[in-house]
């Protein structure tokens, strides 16, 4: 039982999760996604929630495509996006991004990870995994010795926390190994921070006051 190599150290096109290039890539993709998705077109008369979802989808797609297919959560996120797009009113180009990400490592990704897109399937799998892990842990009788020797790992990654992490990190359901889960969490957190920074920059830019800096020189 060996962990996969830490994802955050992998470089995709010279870009790792924490670099500035990554942030700019997110920005660029975000703009593209916003434009393509028409999330901002008020002519369509979207409600607030729809717009928010559209923008968030664009942001997530931007994040996933900027990050590439290396980390597991990225692929899972792309898969989620593409699958949710199928049920929407019109398929957008985010689906293309998602497919691009999903198809590339299709062979490497675990087959169970692919079929997790549907919510029902997800719930079932999550329930199964919870039961399995519960049974596995309960079957170990917690006598004095075993309990004390349960180890730092077990104590730290208590079931509750591991479950919480799995629910938050996309693609976490398929990660039985806590080591990879932690690695994915690390990478995902860094990428999320970059995404938030990019969106904040965009927002600040758009909402910036235009004129107070200008001094008429002539």
């Amino acid at each position, binding site marked *: 039982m060996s962990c996969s190599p830490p994802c955050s150290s992998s470089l995709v096109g010279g870009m790792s999760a924490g670099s500035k*290039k990554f942030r700019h890539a997110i920005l660029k993709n975000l703009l593209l996604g916003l434009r393509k998705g028409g999330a901002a077109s008020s002519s369509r008369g979207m409600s607030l929630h729809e717009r928010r979802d559209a923008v968030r989808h664009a942001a997530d797609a931007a994040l996933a495509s900027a990050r590439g297919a290396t980390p597991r959560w990225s692929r899972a996120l792309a898969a989620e996006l593409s699958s949710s797009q199928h049920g929407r009113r019109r398929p957008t180009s985010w689906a293309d991004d998602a497919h691009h990400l999903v198809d590339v490592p299709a062979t490497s990704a675990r087959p169970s990870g692919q079929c997790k897109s549907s919510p029902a399937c997800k719930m079932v799998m999550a329930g199964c995994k919870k039961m399995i892990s519960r049974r596995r842990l309960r079957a170990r009788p917690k*006598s004095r010795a075993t309990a004390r*020797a349960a180890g730092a790992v077990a104590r730290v990654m208590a079931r509750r926390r591991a479950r919480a992490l799995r629910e938050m990190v996309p693609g976490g359901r398929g990660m039985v190994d806590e080591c990879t889960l932690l690695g994915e969490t690390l990478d995902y957190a860094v990428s999320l921070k970059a995404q938030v920074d990019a969106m904040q920059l965009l927002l600040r830019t*758009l*909402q910036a006051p235009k004129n107070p800096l200008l001094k008429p020189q002539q």
Partner: protein
Amino acid sequence: MQPTTREMQAMAAAGQISLDDLREAAAGAAGGVHDDFLDQMLGGLPPSAWPELASAAGGKAPDGGAQAEGMQHQAQHFGGGLYDESALLASRLRQHQISGGPAGGGGGGAEAAKQMVLQQLADLRQGHHMLLQGMGRSTGGGGGSGDGGLLLPLSLGSGGSGGDVQALLKAAANSAGGEAGGVFGGSFAGSLQQQQQHFQSHPQQTAPLPGQGFGGGDGGAGASGGVSQPQAGAAGGGAAAPPRQRVRARRGQATDPHSIAERLRRERIAERMKALQELVPNANKTDKASMLDEIIDYVKFLQLQVKVLSMSRLGGAAAVAPLVADMSSEGRGGAAAAAGSDGLAVTEQQVAKLMEEDMGTAMQYLQGKGLCLMPVSLASAISSATCHMRPPVGEPGLGFAAAAHHMAAMRLAHGMNGGAGSGADAVPASPSMSVLTAQSAMNNGAGDGGADGEGSHSQQQQHSKDAASVSKP
């Protein structure tokens, strides 16, 4: 009868292992005769009960029924407490010494004593094994492989009363050695003493070793990682006892692949926890568990932030998107009010004049017009309207801005991000970004760290380049 059969199997296993141990210990010394003798003894070695031991001086093979009873008695007895066993064992052995000695001199007595000793040891191990089975059932490594070493049950049984068992072993060894008067007996005693010495090294281990400490056995695979710590310690000592079978391991380290994998896994987890600690703003470092909670909260917070930001950006996105679209469609788009061929010249003059005085004001003037400065090479590259722009300026990217009331906002980073690999492929079909204003990125995002710093840097760097051209839509 279920438990009986299992225990008997364990017994057989125990017997087998002890047989092997003794064989190897006696390999050099004893001849084949003794091996046969051992075989005979151990093959027929019954799991006898304590009361039976007391009664029979050298009863070899009590019937099965008695065995069953004995097992159950033993089970009950062992279930009671570990520490009674050593005292009982000592007392029993002394009894047998007394009774066995005069009962039969020479071979008979030796046989009885040896058998008693072996019985006792086997019983002890088996009893411990039963206990350990009860405790460590989940490891799945029980069963046959449970009795990896003699030491661990012994150490389990006499953590506190080590002296008794040592005396017992000594007595047993002495008696066996004395009465047998043979090499075999000496070797057996030697092995006993060897074990006893190893056992001596153990009494310091206060942690009650779980059943996973199978002297190098593979039972610990299923155990959690933390078990391997005490297991490693025990395995280190236990592995030394049957030296020819297993690799000699350092004290505190285990050689079996499972514990090594466990250790590696724990190290990886530890390093990742450390990295996460540095990432999350509030680094308490008090407790790994609380650190994990912080991490979870942090990720939740970031996700919430994304959600809120996506809600608030709508107006801006509305401003950006159509303008960008306009740019693409019109090519030379222009919401630029002051566009005009001569206007451009005028602007250039203005900019040149301003640049002499102060770069900042020049930039502001440009921004007011919705223009920016860029190297000629870049301008030509951009205006050539190719999708793959790789300008020699290897800037990580300007910030960008959209002056909603002025021009379209388009990110120069499209082109700047040459190193972004596949990112450049996603450049839209309208690369005619002739106008950039980096105003907000420079001015507003002062606290935004790198991006804005870069924006200003790259701006200035551009200015310092050889050619500067003012481009406009």
